[in-house]
């Protein structure tokens, strides 16, 4: 007893230290997480707002020929509407600069409006139009006012005009609907994530549709039917191995098999889904096998004992009990697939695609690729859009992982 007491204080100290290490590890990782999220949100939240300018547009019947609405010069309508606000601007150069306050997308918006409703011709309309990205950056304070004119993308005159517009209440930050409704664009103020989100969705549908049934079937066979011999050992080793392979290898495989051999279209979400299926299959198989294993043998024996066939045992008892674990594994695999870019590079999904994809064979890109492309763009307004797109991606991942936790808690049976 004395010998125990001698060492007791030391053992307590050791235990405290051990706990402290664990706590420190958690605090450190939380700190990094907060740092990451903080820097992303602080940069990205402004992208959900967009500077817009109120113009009084006169739909001039002389400029708009009813028979030829698609080809009319809508940009001149916009320019005219800005010039009306600043009658003192006269030189051609200044007028050109004045026109640059407004995004080139405004003309296309007007075009859409007129084509949808030709009765607008000849009327005056007060419209909020999207401002050019540089105006937006200036209004949000990303372009400093107090540096020499040559060092910023907004000239002194433009700043004066912007101030004038703001004072008249014609310049406002409004919710950025473009960001959620448009596809990619080279003009930051017109760029959106809709195309990438749709691409991600199509890709994940293909992945889920293929990976889940194949993965579950493989796991059931390996766990319930396969004999234990050298071959199944070999398969098991290979499955575990595949789960750890760098994803770019799957991209190379996809390029060789799906594009070059099967002649599937390049850049299509179908091929992306196939490649990501290959990538997520091992994860799903491993998770499914683990959850099949965790079903107690007594269930199996009881079912067999009252005369159920092997198939009935599996489909009536084991599979339903193992399903929550399988779904959790699948969702985690899907979440990983959602964040992948490397394998998609090889099959042409790292691309500039403006049109929002509508089918599995349309050229498409995915959210992480969109983030990568924007991060690489020189225009400064893409910085906040990059962060905003990351926020959207993180939100979707959070939803998916949340669903995994929910499914587990709701359906899990403890023995």
């Amino acid at each position: 007893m004395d010998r125990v007491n001698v060492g007791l204080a030391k053992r307590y100290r050791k235990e405290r230290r051990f706990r402290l290490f664990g706590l420190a590890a958690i605090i450190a990782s939380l700190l990094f997480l907060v740092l990451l999220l903080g820097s992303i949100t602080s940069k990205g939240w402004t992208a959900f707002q967009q500077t817009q300018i109120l113009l009084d547009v006169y739909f001039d019947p002389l400029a708009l020929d009813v028979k030829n609405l698609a080809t009319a010069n809508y940009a001149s309508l916009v320019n005219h509407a800005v010039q009306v606000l600043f009658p003192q601007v006269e030189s051609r150069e200044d007028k050109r600069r004045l026109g640059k306050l407004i995004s080139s997308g405004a003309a296309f918006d007007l075009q859409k409006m007129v084509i949808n409703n030709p009765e607008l011709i000849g009327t005056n309309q007060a419209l909020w139009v999207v401002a050019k990205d540089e105006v937006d950056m200036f209004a949000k304070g990303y372009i400093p006012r107090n540096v020499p004119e040559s060092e910023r993308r907004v000239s002194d005159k433009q700043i004066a005009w912007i101030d004038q517009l703001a004072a008249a209440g014609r310049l406002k930050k409004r919710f950025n609907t473009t960001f959620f409704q448009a596809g990619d664009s080279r003009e930051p103020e017109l760029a959106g994530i809709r195309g990438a989100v749709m691409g991600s969705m199509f890709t994940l549908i293909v992945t889920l549709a293929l990976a889940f049934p194949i993965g579950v079937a493989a796991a059931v066979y390996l766990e319930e039917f396969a004999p234990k011999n050298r071959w199944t050992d070999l398969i098991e080793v290979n499955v575990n191995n595949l789960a750890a392979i760098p994803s770019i290898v799957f991209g190379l495989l996809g390029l060789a098999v799906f594009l070059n051999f099967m002649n599937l279209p390049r850049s299509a979400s179908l091929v992306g889904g196939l490649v990501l299926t290959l990538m997520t299959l091992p994860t799903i198989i491993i998770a499914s096998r683990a959850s099949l294993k965790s079903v107690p043998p007594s269930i199996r024996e009881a079912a067999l004992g009252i005369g159920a066939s092997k198939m009935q045992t599996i489909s009536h008892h084991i599979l339903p009990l193992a399903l929550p674990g399988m779904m959790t594994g699948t969702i985690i695999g899907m979440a990983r697939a959602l964040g992948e870019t490397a394998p998609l590079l090889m099959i042409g999904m790292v691309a500039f695609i403006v049109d929002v994809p509508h089918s599995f064979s349309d050229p498409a890109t995915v959210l992480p690729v969109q983030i990568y492309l924007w991060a690489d763009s020189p225009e400064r307004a893409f910085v906040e859009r990059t962060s905003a797109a990351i926020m959207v991606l993180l939100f979707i991942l959070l939803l998916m992982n949340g669903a995994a936790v929910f499914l587990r808690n709701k359906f899990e049976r403890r023995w």
Partner: protein
Amino acid sequence: MQKIGYTLAAASLMLASAATTTMATEGRDYISMVGSGTVYPFAAAVAEQFGKTSKFKTPKIEATGTGGGMKLFCAGAGVDTPDITNASRQMKKSEMEACEKNGVTEVVEVRVGYDGIVFANSKKAAPMQLSRKDIYLALAKQVPSPAGGDKLVANPYKTWKDVNPALPANKIEVFGPAPISGTRDAFTELVMDNGCETFPFIKAMEKSDAKQFKAVCQTLREDGGYVEAGDNYNLIVQKLETSPASMGIFGFSYLDQNGDKVQGSMIDGSIPTFENIASGKYVVSRPLFFYVKKAHVGVVPGINEYIAEFTSDRAWGKEGYLAEKGLIPAPAEERKANAEIAKSLKPMVMK
């Protein structure tokens, strides 16, 4: 629970069959482009404008790098290969041969404008005045011995002051693109080769042993003086901001967008401005190209119209929207000549 499982399985099987039946094997109704990351922002701007103003679909553009683009472009003449490849350097003879071998015989070359490569540092530091020789001496793996003579030694220079006494005593640390990038190719060709040729004995080597010459001039040091920063130039700009003593190499459009953060160094007496690059006064500039597969014109809809949009004055002209994006317009006659080639689709002839 069981029902959920079955419906899930059934739904996924249905989806799987639906997905696999939508394989598109028929022709393509949009233009497919690959190639240089430097030309990508310009091509994308044109593609977008083209998609919005014409009845055609918006072209798809992959930034694969100039070399990667050539490889895909020359892989064959079928519609499953790209129609256009963008390049930040001219097509090489070996690439043309690969093209011809695979049945791509008629290729139209269009020169779209210029891009300047800048050597920049943070606004917090003093602007640098460099010569191409200084840059060569600071960045090459092997340099002529500082003691004199025709001997090459491993680069001994640690600071800019060691290279040239007129420069500040900052440690040599340059962030630049990796070898797969066309910007890197152009940089080694325009700056390193040129700086290296200022030494007569190396220049003589160019004639006697071209391979050796290339190795001496184009191999960059690997001891930390030159840091490969991948292809993300925004990252280089950010790094320069946090370490004012460092330098960075990137395309002019990044300097143009970040004028409040970084400044371009004077190279051989001129600073990188829009005007200096356009007039040719700033020496580190290179032409940009795109190449069209003539066999696809008329097969894939819209190629003619896309080329017409790119070569129109409102796009690549002095006041065009590409100048806004950082493309340096070519002189008027050159633009005219290239627009002519683009219109008539005259295939290029390799010299």
